[in-house]
């Protein structure tokens, strides 16, 4: 394990070095990550005001709380692996990953976590500014705050594994961008990024719960904002753990099949 720890710490330095190479792109990245929730926040605040101060139990202050927490949670859980894989397979750089005596998921995980740690202060500062402007109201309870941390980490694990597995589609088709597009649109609606899931029609809500989407982003947000009961919180954590097991199994299977395909047709 000390070898893997060495890899993770070295990857951290590499990621840092890469991000500092492109300071401008770091700013652009930050803007895009703040702009997205900001747009929805403004839209929903306006809607709630025009419909008498509240939509489905969300007033302007609750929407502000929801989208600010969502921004932070999304920052922790998001990945860019699906774009990355398309590039790797297309440019043949994936061959080098296969030549190394380490499963490539470790480098990806290390890179992801490193980048998150490096950008965390920026996104926290952005959240603080948004909080000053939009004056969110939080109904925090001690147990929910405690349960939030594992829910957040599990959400990251579920999302990372789901997207890493989906990214392997690049082995079968060179047009992965279409698959990515479908996934991202589904995620936009079903993981609570456009609106709180409780505001969605029942069938969509059901889809979000049955599929992994709610568990990758929305669930920890709901939990922290006090919109999940004690029992449901426990069940939610178990569902997340269950998805991780399922995904690990799937990933192993798809990875092997993918490498077989890759090494059958040539790199």
């Amino acid at each position, binding site marked *: 394990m000390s*070898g893997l720890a*060495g*890899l993770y*710490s*070295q*990857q951290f*330095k*590499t990621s840092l*070095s*890469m991000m500092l*190479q*492109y300071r401008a792109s770091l700013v652009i990245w930050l803007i895009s990550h703040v702009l997205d929730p900001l747009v929805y926040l403004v839209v929903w605040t306006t809607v709630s005001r025009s419909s008498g101060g509240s939509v489905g139990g969300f007033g302007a202050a609750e929407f502000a709380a929801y989208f600010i927490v969502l921004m932070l949670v999304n920052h922790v859980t998001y990945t860019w692996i699906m774009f990355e894989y398309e590039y790797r397979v297309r440019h*043949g*750089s994936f*061959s*080098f990953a*296969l*030549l*190394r*005596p*380490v499963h490539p998921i470790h*480098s990806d995980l290390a890179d992801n976590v490193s980048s998150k740690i490096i950008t965390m202060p920026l996104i926290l500062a952005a959240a603080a500014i948004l909080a000053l402007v939009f004056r969110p109201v939080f109904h925090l309870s001690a147990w929910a705050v405690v349960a939030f941390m594992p829910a957040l980490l599990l959400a990251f694990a579920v999302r990372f594994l789901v997207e890493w597995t989906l990214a392997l589609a690049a082995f079968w088709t060179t047009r992965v961008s279409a698959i990515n597009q479908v996934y991202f649109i589904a995620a936009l609606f079903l993981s609570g990024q456009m609106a709180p899931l409780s505001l969605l029609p029942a069938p969509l809500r059901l889809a979000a719960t049955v599929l992994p989407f709610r568990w990758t982003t929305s669930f920890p947000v709901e939990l922290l904002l006090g919109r999940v009961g004690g029992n449901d919180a426990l069940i939610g954590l178990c569902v997340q753990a269950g998805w991780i097991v399922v995904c690990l199994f799937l990933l192993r299977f798809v990875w092997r099949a993918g490498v*077989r395909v890759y*090494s*059958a*047709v*040539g*790199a």
Partner: protein
Amino acid sequence: MMETAPAIRVRDLRKTYVVSERDAGAAAALRSLVNRRTREVAAVDGISFELAAGEVVGFLGPNGAGKTTTLKMLSGLLHPSGGEVSVLGHAPSRREKDFLRQITLVMGQRNQLVWDIPAADSFELNRAIYRIPRPEFRQTLDELEALLELGPLMGKPVRTLSLGERMKCEIAAALLHRPKVVFLDEPTIGLDVTMQRRIRSFLAEYNQRYGATILLTSHYMADVEALCRRVLVIHHGRLLFDGELAALVQRFTAHKTIVVRLEDCTTDLSVYGEVVSCDEGLATLRVAKNLTARVTERLLADLPVVDLTVEDPPIEEVIERVFAQGTAQGTAT
């Protein structure tokens, strides 16, 4: 016993690709949507060879002969369609960690270095990936730095390096873990002559120092002549020749070149052999190999010879002949 075991053993190795094909034009494109025609292409068609530990062998063949496909099968990137491969006692396609730690593959046209950061950072990443102990890493890096003159390059982002500079860094990155088996696919492609020579002498040095087994492909015969006593010649996926470079020349050349310097060049030399060129007293003759001794004798006896040398034709010419014969055989069968 361990020393005598071959580092690489290949038996009847095959790789068949399924390619889809269609005629040109929109109609054909539409047809191929419903009815896709596929064809099997044998990229490697049953080759066998062995490499002893520490050998440096050149792998020659025209584009599309199956060289890269073979190297990829040897390094575990491609699954063979048939036959057996064993490298250091491992089946490469299983990609066992113990196997991957002992080999490397350098592809002249692809890069493993991270584009946006200095090579030194990529080296550090490789140190972590291959779990190279610090002191060993430091020592290897110092050696590579000296041999390849990396010093001033290491701190610059890789994207700002020239092709040759990048290649030197690529090779260094690929050898940091001191692999016992090194596969090189066109390591000098696109480089100028000085850089080619530098990389060549480096590879020779690496082979000497670590006793590494090296299999390399190159379009530059100078690479092969400088590094490899033995060559494998592959064409249309089949092995045409396996042996010493000198023997290849022997076998595939029917002619020798005689260069004579004469006191005067008025004599008609065509009675001795085919005159390739003749000016200012220097004549070049092409003579059938079995006649070389006799013609030389006659030239020396008949003419006022100042100097005379007998040469094999340039290696490029020999290789061209090998491929030409291979094509003839390929179409005959």
